[in-house]
């Protein structure tokens, strides 16, 4: 099974049925798999904070949401994470492409990579880092954890992880 299908299957296993995305090259395959799955409402967002607003609404409306985005979006969404998702205690799994790690061809991506974990730590956001293929085995448990504790949770997926497939 491809990693993309595996991620979608774990989403479905955890009743996630509303997924907003802002694309990244590394995430193209999983976004395609989300789009193709009829049990998930896929709503592309124009900016990640908009996507988090959509997810907040969907969750209050009774659907379990998730957002798929690049780590650069942490810079865009700090205010939303703090004053909406965390302040109102809402769950939000964030599947994040961790650009700027080993294998990165674009130097500018490293500039945000060096801040990514520090920012997430500062925000008290539980953070998991998928570096090797087998790390994806934790996704199901991470999703359960997210909806148990009603917090935004970050799943960083780097180039080594995606290239392992």
């Amino acid at each position, binding site marked *: 099974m491809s990693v993309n299908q595996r991620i979608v299957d774990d989403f479905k296993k955890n009743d996630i049925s509303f997924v907003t995305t802002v694309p990244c090259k590394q995430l193209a395959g999983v976004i395609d798999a989300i789009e193709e799955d009829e049990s998930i409402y896929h*709503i592309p967002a124009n900016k990640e*904070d908009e*996507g988090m*607003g959509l997810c907040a*609404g969907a969750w209050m*409306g009774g659907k379990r949401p998730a957002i798929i985005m690049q780590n650069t979006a942490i810079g865009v969404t700090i205010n939303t994470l703090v004053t*909406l998702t965390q*302040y*109102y205690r809402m769950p939000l799994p964030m599947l994040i492409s961790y650009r700027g790690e080993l294998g990165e061809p674009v130097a500018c991506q490293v500039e945000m990579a060096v801040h990514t974990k520090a920012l997430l730590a500062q925000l008290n956001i539980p953070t998991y880092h998928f570096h090797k293929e087998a790390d994806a085995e934790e996704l199901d448990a991470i999703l359960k954890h997210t909806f148990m504790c009603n917090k935004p949770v970050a799943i960083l997926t780097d180039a080594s992880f995606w290239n392992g497939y």
Partner: protein
Amino acid sequence: MIRSEVLREIAPVIRDHLVICNIGLPSQEMHLIDDQPSNFYMLGTMGLSSSIGLGVALAQDKKVIAIDGDGSVLTNFGTLPTIANNAADNFILLIVDNGSYGSTGDQPTYAGKKTSLAKVAEACGCENVVECQAEETGQVIKDALASNKMTVIVCKCESGNVKVPVITMDPVVIRDRFMRTIQG
């Protein structure tokens, strides 16, 4: 009419529906005028009233009215294409357009100058866009609710504020009673 007068007039029209109240004075005014468990008050996060409202509308069947402002829509312009392309016929976006950033001291917005939010919404693909004067807003909302079509309403009103207290209710209480209303 200023925004608080518009909200006072539409309160009886919207009170039986789910209402997302924009950050700052719009939330504080709705809270003072007609506090309902079906009101979700935004205590922060400028710009996301329409996004939260669309999310609620897409996730369940009850009617949702997102009260937004011209300044907030300008902050989150990307919301209009998303709304247009993910039509939810139980969703009404009410943009109270007073041409100013009311909560921060009535600084002028571009919507009060050359920019027409109604035309932008149409250009983004929103199919039912109504621009109205403040006095007409209640009737326009009634018509939109009866139409069962997703509608964007741009209510042109005067700039100005009244003194209202801040909301001290805990955010988790706000969203918990809102969610219970949805489930009920």
